[in-house]
């Protein structure tokens, strides 16, 4: 399938600290793309740059064929990209249902007069939005918590609320930033299954993860970042054998007696 995201020669510096150096990546519309790397490698910064949260210091970003390099987050999301965060960002004081419905914001067509006059168009749209949201919550297995205030939910469920909100915008590309952080093995298994199903539903997925098993069994391709530089982009099997990657995570042979 064709390329949907083209990251060309992208660098990002924060007052002298070079967080990303000359990144070149091409993401296809039908893959699960993994990004791994030690902490501080620049993975989340990359996510920030390819969603308009931070502007790249150099390079271009082309999303769905359009040059998005200097656009803001809102515009990226209008194009069909959605994201979850490393430290969960749910709307704490709102119910799970409302959280999900916020995700649909860009697809709501009622204007102010429709709302104030409570026209038929508005009522139909709201009803459909609620049904759509409940479908997504069902898919994620948290439909029972639809009326619960998000901040009172356990961590794992809040993570799912975030994913529900991201799915609600009917994105063509979903970015997941360390979705299994803080999860036990069972929850991680469930999430892996979920991500596979999400990919089947349509959107391409880019995942930042530390969990090697998650990466290797789910991803079609994996990119490895270290100190802001792209070390390798390859299939999971080849990445595991790549000497530079091994060095980045485990150190060079001869560095320490612990390395086998």
């Amino acid at each position, binding site marked *: 399938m064709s390329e949907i995201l083209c990251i060309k020669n992208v660098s990002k510096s924060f007052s002298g600290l070079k967080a990303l150096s000359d990144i070149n990546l091409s993401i296809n519309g039908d893959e699960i793309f993994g990004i791994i790397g030690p902490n501080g490698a620049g993975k989340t910064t990359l996510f920030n740059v390819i969603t308009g949260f931070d502007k790249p210091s150099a390079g271009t970003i082309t999303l769905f064929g359009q040059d998005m390099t200097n656009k803001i987050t*809102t515009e990226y999301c209008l194009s069909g990209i959605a994201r979850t965060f490393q430290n969960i960002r749910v*709307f*704490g004081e709102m119910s799970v249902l409302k959280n999900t419905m916020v*995700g649909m*914001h*860009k697809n709501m067509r*009622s204007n102010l007069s429709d709302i104030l006059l409570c026209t038929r168009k508005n009522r139909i749209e709201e009803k459909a939005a609620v049904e759509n949201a409940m479908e997504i919550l069902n898919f994620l297995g948290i439909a029972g918590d639809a009326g619960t205030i998000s901040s009172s939910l356990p961590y794992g469920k809040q993570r799912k609320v975030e994913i529900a*909100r991201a799915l609600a*915008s009917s994105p063509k590309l979903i970015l997941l930033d360390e979705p299994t952080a803080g999860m036990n093995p069972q929850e991680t298994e469930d999430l892996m299954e979920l991500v596979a199903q999400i990919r089947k539903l349509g959107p391409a997925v880019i995942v930042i993860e530390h969990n090697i098993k998650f990466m290797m069994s789910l991803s079609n391709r994996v990119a490895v970042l270290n100190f802001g530089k792209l070390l390798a982009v390859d299939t999971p099997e080849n990445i595991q054998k790549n000497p530079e990657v091994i060095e980045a995570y485990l150190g060079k042979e001869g560095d320490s007696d612990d390395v086998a």
Partner: protein
Amino acid sequence: MKSDNKADMKKLALFAFLVLFLAIPQVVHNTYMLKVIINVMLYSIIALSVNLIVGFCGLLDFGRSAFAGLGTYFLAITLTRYGNFPFFLAFFGAGLFSASVGWLLGMLCQKTAFDYLTLITLGVNEIVRVILLNWQSATGGAIGIMGVPSPNLFGFHFDTHRRFFYFAYALLAICYILIRRLTRSHYGRAFEAIRDDAIAASYSAINVPKYKALCFSFASFFTGIAGAAMVSYTNYASPYNFTIDESLIMMQMAILGGLGSLPGCILGAAILIIAPEISRTIYDYRLLVMGILMVILMVFAPNGILGKNGVGERMVDIVRIRRAEK
């Protein structure tokens, strides 16, 4: 089903209350009491607008009274200076004028951080007050504007206390319904999203600065309308009514009732207007009393009387526990 019956009963009770409320001016002839109730209704509208900004969008606005003043003076000036200016236009214009200034403020402060926006609203309040006080040729300065006519709609004059009661009642009902519809729409959810996490909100394709300005604008429309209604009741516009103290009281009405709770606004307005009237002592010490009330609230019901874990919820819980024990 049992819960359906309960919901229906509640609706019926509410409907009955609203209808009975309409009978008040027929039964109560004491002008003073009518005046107090009318004040409660008009201030409720302002409290609703404060709730929209502070409760739903999470922006701290200490300058609400300025926007009421804009509405007041727009109506006062257009109706006293231009002979046959239709009331309806002046009234609506007051709301639109206030909304435009609110929009302007929101757009100018797009990149302003939360704390500084708060300070700016204080500044706006003062700027408006000083202009109203000093621009003598336009506003009459310290003397104010006298002879502001009562509402005149479709030939019907709302020039008695009794008639104005119905005007204020209808106005509150309309504003309440409109604000309620707004908060239940995707606009309302966008405002709440901005309050809870502005970054995540922008990732839901919500243009955060634009929606903040929108929130200011919508709320200010209602504040302006309320200000216009107030002056057409008292028939006199004075710059001394639009101080920061007034803004604080308006804010306290929304907070007391519970931010995010629309009925709470009416309750808050009722308490803060009626209590000082009941007790002369409370009136003299009203700022002190309100301060103490605020502290008590912060300890026992930080989300207001009708907010989460507030008096309303606690009472419901107590009733439920008693029932379960039986």
